[in-house]
């Protein structure tokens, strides 16, 4: 299958942005977007986890769920896909966390609580299942995971910038707090939908 790298990269960041076009990973998008620095930390962690998770799940998909043969018996393990993905992603993030703590304490500190927090975030799972759904190879899947993470981080950064502005503006009483945040997110999403059809 010819891989369309434009779709994989620009598409994952802008056109099919995980938060604003696919509406996955809304929880951290609303929860961790109050300040720019925490948004940056979360964005970094998501890029990191999504990349390794996409790679691992693509391997699982290719070599376990679609083509497993044990003692000569072949079985279709497609139904195990989600279970195995969660299992593998969770384990992988745990291992990475342990290793990071040992070898790169500054990075470990920067990612902080966000790393375990997004282990089974639906955006991470979404990247894995989308990759599996259209039968992507391991390398394009990894690339897709990474750029999806970048798209997520971009959306998070834009939104946290907006929310910092919202903090300072006069908002009518009924719209204060989460209400105006959700409205803003909706408008931002509409803006991103303008990218649709590019690739």
């Amino acid at each position, binding site marked *: 299958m010819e891989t369309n790298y434009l779709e994989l990269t620009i598409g994952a960041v802008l056109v099919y942005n995980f938060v604003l076009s696919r509406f996955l990973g809304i929880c951290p998008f609303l929860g961790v977007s109050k300040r720019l620095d925490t948004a940056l930390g979360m964005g970094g962690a998501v890029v990191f986890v999504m990349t390794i998770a996409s790679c691992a799940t693509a391997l*699982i998909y290719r070599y*376990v769920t679609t083509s*497993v043969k*044990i003692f000569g*018996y072949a*079985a*279709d*393990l497609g*139904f*195990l896909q989600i*279970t*195995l993905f969660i*299992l*593998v992603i969770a*384990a*992988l993030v*745990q*291992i990475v966390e*342990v*290793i990071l*703590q*040992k*070898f790169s*304490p500054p990075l470990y500190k920067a990612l*902080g*609580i966000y790393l375990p927090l997004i282990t089974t975030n639906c955006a991470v799972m979404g990247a894995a299942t989308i990759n599996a759904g259209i039968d992507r190879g391991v390398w394009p899947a990894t690339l897709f995971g990474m750029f999806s993470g970048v798209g997520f981080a971009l959306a998070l950064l834009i939104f946290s910038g907006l929310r910092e502005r919202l903090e300072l503006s*006069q908002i009518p009483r009924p719209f204060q707090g989460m209400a105006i945040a959700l409205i803003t997110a909706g408008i931002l999403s509409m803006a991103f939908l303008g990218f649709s059809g590019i690739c």
Partner: protein
Amino acid sequence: MNTILIAALVCGVIALVSGLVIGVASKLFAVPSDPRVDLVIGLLPGANCGGCGKAGCADFAKSVVAGENPPNKCPVSSAEQISAIAHALGIEAGSSFKQVAVVLCGGDLNQARQHTLYNGVYDCVSAAMVAGGPKSCSYGCFGMGSCARSCPFGAIEIINNLAVVHPEVCVGCGTCVATCPRHLIKLVPAEAKVHIFCSSPLKGPEKKKVCSVPCLGCRKCVKAGAEGQFTVEGVKVSVNYDTGENGLPGEDVVAAAGCPTGCLMTVAKHLETEYAELAEAKKETENGRK
């Protein structure tokens, strides 16, 4: 049947392998951590509320062990939990105590005069900028709720245009203190039940012109209370919250003093009167409609 077996086998093997790898990795790459940190984490409530200003209980535990924070910085822990932590670490629990905020003004809609009609942005800071706001008393509460909006715990209620703190809800975080343009909010010990609800340093007659519940500076309360329970600065009398040997004034002092304006009272009584006035005003408007 085969599918089930194979599925179970595959899941089992993958789980086993990842479990083993995590186990080996955590042993191999173990970072020697301070056992005291784990001890303190165990003693903390684990709410991860961030009320202490740290990113979660684990972070706070680290700072406690490092000596950056006293254990009592945790607003959720009870006194026993804090002393348990302090005992485990062999340090002082911290000299500060549980505090609550109090708005030291009793001049609500019915008691304090308004000399102008303020039509601007409904916010105390904005009102203070426009020629000192609508209230005749330039040391009184605007009651526009800047403090109430800033309170993350919803402990401040605006009753009859007067901000009143509910001490049982307040955790003493002090967020509201900075928001008051008149600096009427004070953090006081949680045991302090009696306050003088007036912060104006003006002379008695001047205050009396604009408010019916000011502190006139008659010092009846000073005489009724024990030594050091009240402080007098010029005309203004206030409760001395730095507890001396005589402690804080209690309800008996309120009764004994017989404050002529009633600005010396307990928090509970203060709330009660405000609610009563509110109910009365409601009744009146209902009657007016009829």
